[in-house]
């Protein structure tokens, strides 16, 4: 479903991505982990059609980016640590607005169903600015899946969530995975979401350094692997400090 080939992104003299290759099959849930500055967010923004690579390409569902970005957009849902919601609009108005932008059929029923799914039906008339961080994140997922995208992209979705909210998010993601959506998540947090996904990929210094199937390793084993593969980065950071 997602095919990333030789992706390079350069800012001036700074190489953020140094040739990333990644294949995500239809219905697969892949998590990308890496420390700060590993190039995760840059990679995500390129896949989300928000940024153009310096070289290499991304294909989503057979359409190549950035040439066919306009055709791909309808099929992607994007959740980031920013809510992408208007704080001054109510929950229902926010979803209504995006239903209009995606020109969805039966917008009203669809919005109500989405609000029920994330447990915010009772709060639909409240402005989003009055919501807690966990509620905002649930609404963000409702917004990102409103148009039933084939691909769901998640950029650090667990940032700022407490234990309960994280568990709720876990459940929502499990549901979306079971619904057959292809999911690509990036995170620097090794305590969340790794048990949900099919495969984990370690990104370090702008390159993919290791891939591991979730069935192959326990959490402790994974932590060892992660420490091993990202040690260079940390040593460099220590040296700089």
């Amino acid at each position: 479903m997602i095919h990333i080939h030789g992706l390079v992104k350069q800012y001036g003299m700074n190489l953020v991505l140094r040739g990333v290759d990644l294949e995500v099959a239809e219905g697969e849930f892949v998590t990308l982990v890496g420390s700060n500055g590993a190039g995760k967010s840059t990679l995500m923004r390129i896949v989300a059609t928000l940024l153009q690579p310096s070289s290499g390409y991304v294909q989503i569902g057979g359409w190549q980016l950035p040439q066919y970005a306009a055709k791909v957009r309808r099929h992607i849902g994007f959740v980031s640590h920013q809510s992408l919601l208007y704080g001054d609009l109510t929950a229902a108005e926010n979803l209504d607005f995006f239903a209009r932008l995606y020109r969805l059929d039966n917008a009203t029923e669809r919005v109500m169903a989405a609000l029920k799914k994330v447990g915010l039906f009772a709060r639909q008339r409240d402005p989003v600015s009055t919501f807690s961080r966990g509620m905002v994140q649930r609404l963000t997922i409702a917004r990102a899946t409103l148009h039933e995208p084939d691909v769901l992209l998640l950029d650090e979705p667990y940032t700022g969530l407490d234990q309960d909210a994280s568990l709720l998010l876990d459940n929502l993601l499990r549901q979306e995975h079971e619904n057959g959506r292809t999911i690509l998540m990036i995170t620097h947090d090794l305590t969340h979401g790794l048990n949900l996904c099919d495969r984990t990929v370690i990104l370090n210094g702008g390159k993919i350094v290791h891939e591991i199937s979730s069935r192959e390793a326990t959490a402790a084993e994974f932590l060892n692997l992660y420490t091993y593969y990202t040690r260079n980065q940390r040593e460099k950071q220590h040296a700089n400090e």
Partner: protein
Amino acid sequence: MPMSEQTSLTRPPESEARAFLTAVLAIVWKDLHIEQHTRQTISVMVMFSVVTVVMFNFALEANLDAARNVATGLLWATILLAGTLGLNRSLAIERENQTVDALLMAPIHRNAIYIGKVISITLFTLALEAILVLLFIVFFDKPLWRPVVLLVLVLGTIGYVAAGVIVTSMTIQTRSREVLLPVLLLPLSLPLVLPAATAVAAYMFPQLPDWGEVQSAVYIVIIYDLLMLTAGFLTYHFVVES
């Protein structure tokens, strides 16, 4: 597995113009709803304008005739300055929770965002002007209700906001943000305001002027509107994409 362009959820393919219009209206609808909830943009612009006018009255207090003479210039200056507040506020909303990303990822044309923003900010500025016109009629006893005056105000506002959305979309992504906007936008909009103010000034006398005397000024305003909208149409996506 190539995906089709439409999904089963979307309405059957419409003409591109229809889709564009739907997206523009959605954005205007959204901005009006936000304004309806907060009333921040218009109220800030109005408060700023009233303060400016009062301050100016105070400066010219000794001479009411002088104040009357500069009234049309003062009207435009107030609109331009208050306009920068409206532009900054309305485009800052899209940066607050990075909603601009959501707009850019939506299956809509970039210029639908541009036109949507131009329309909603123009509406806010026109609301401000309606109040300002009333104030000026009361304060300075000027016949600002005349149709040509109102037409020039509407046309001038469109051109100003068309330039403003492009420039503000850039300045809001820089370090200096609010500070930089007036420095860039005010000189850019003066070629518009100069003929517009001339046209309005011609209508400030009891007897109506010949249309022939003001038509060239009105045409210049229209040409500016068209040039700026074209420039905005051609460059907007370079300003918001990265």
